[in-house]
């Protein structure tokens, strides 16, 4: 945890640990930027936008500006669903 702002520094998730473990800080930042870009691409249809917060957390927002902080991919997905009001089911998204 950051001693100044209290932000948690662990966005541990099985999909991010394998890419970020044992990499330099620059690569980690680039990975993170890319992750946020992909998340925005996937969830814009639900009116969701995601941006990087201080430390390693994410800020998930809906169309009306309501926002939530999320700490890893699982909590981002939970916030997307909650803020969009949609049941986000990958098997029901049309090809």
């Amino acid at each position, binding site marked *: 945890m950051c001693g100044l702002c209290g932000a948690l520094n662990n966005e541990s998730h099985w*999909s991010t640990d394998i890419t970020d*473990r*044992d990499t330099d800080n620059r690569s980690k930042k680039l990975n993170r930027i890319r992750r946020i870009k992909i998340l925005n691409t*996937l969830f814009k249809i639900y009116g969701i936008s995601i941006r990087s917060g201080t430390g390693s957390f994410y800020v998930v927002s809906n169309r009306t500006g309501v926002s939530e902080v999320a700490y890893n991919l699982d909590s981002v997905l939970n916030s997307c669903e909650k803020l969009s009001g949609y049941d986000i*089911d*990958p*098997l029901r998204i049309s090809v």
Partner: protein
Amino acid sequence: MSMYTSDHVPFNIITGFLGSGKTTILKKILEDEQFGDSAILINEFGEVGIDDLIISEVSRDVVVLKSGCVCCTIRGELSESIKSLFEKRRNGEIPYFKRIILETTGLADPSPISATLVHDSVLKNNVILGQTLTVIDALNWENNKNEFTVWLDQVSASDQVWIGKKDLVSEESVKALTILINDLNPACTVVSSVKNILKDVFIQNSFKATYSPNNSENSFLLGHESKKSNSAKLDNINSFRLFISEKNFDWFGFGVWLSLLLKKHGNKILRVKGVLYTAGKADPVVIHGVQHIIHPPAHVTFLREENRVSRVVFITKGIDKETVENSLTYFMNACKSGED
């Protein structure tokens, strides 16, 4: 680089329905010096009948056997029993063990055990899930399957299957059961010899044993052969492979997709096992999951193939291949378009 190190102790699970023959197999393991470097967690000493195997008693719950292995009963939470083993090993109270084998109860679904190993902040730094052996009752399997959903959970979680009570049924029945098991879970192997049980002894070799192209249990996963018969779909259970070319594969997009899929349908995704090639990395990543849990993936350095095609085996209940494939294709295309 994998989060696992050579200090991680492989954790094997022996499961199987009530009366399937688990105890018989367990007794063979306890007597066999091949497993002399193991710590074995069981429910009750009396159930296995090991009095004649004990050479010393460490405590009421922990004994050392002639084969060299340590045998412990589980009191309370599994996670606490495992931590207690490490503490006793550290203090020199029990011999050094190189792996842990857990015998589940007959009505247990193995997937919560996976969750314990992955989510516990101490255990995930000390153990790695190894192979799961499921014992199936050749005489009563059909009744067990029809009456109890946990039977299917145990089969779909298995890496190896031992058919118990073979001597009580015909050879044709055993063959038919073997075909059924391969249909239900093409990612497992039916073993016929005790010496082939739980071969992933050491952490350095656990992925080798589990993911080696020479290991027949992975033939289906690696696409080298089809183990499925042409028998009709069973009980709404689907087992299939998905292939993704390297140019179409995006690791993080795949992570988002699979996380969403398990979040929504984890109770119907009985098993996921995959070999995935990511751009810029020579070595593939192997993933393994049971229901809602994905174990920490790892790069493997010994599996180098010319055709860098990612493939994932799914065992699902009530979800067909086409639906899953279309969904994955959508996500991979969306990630690609987002890059443009």
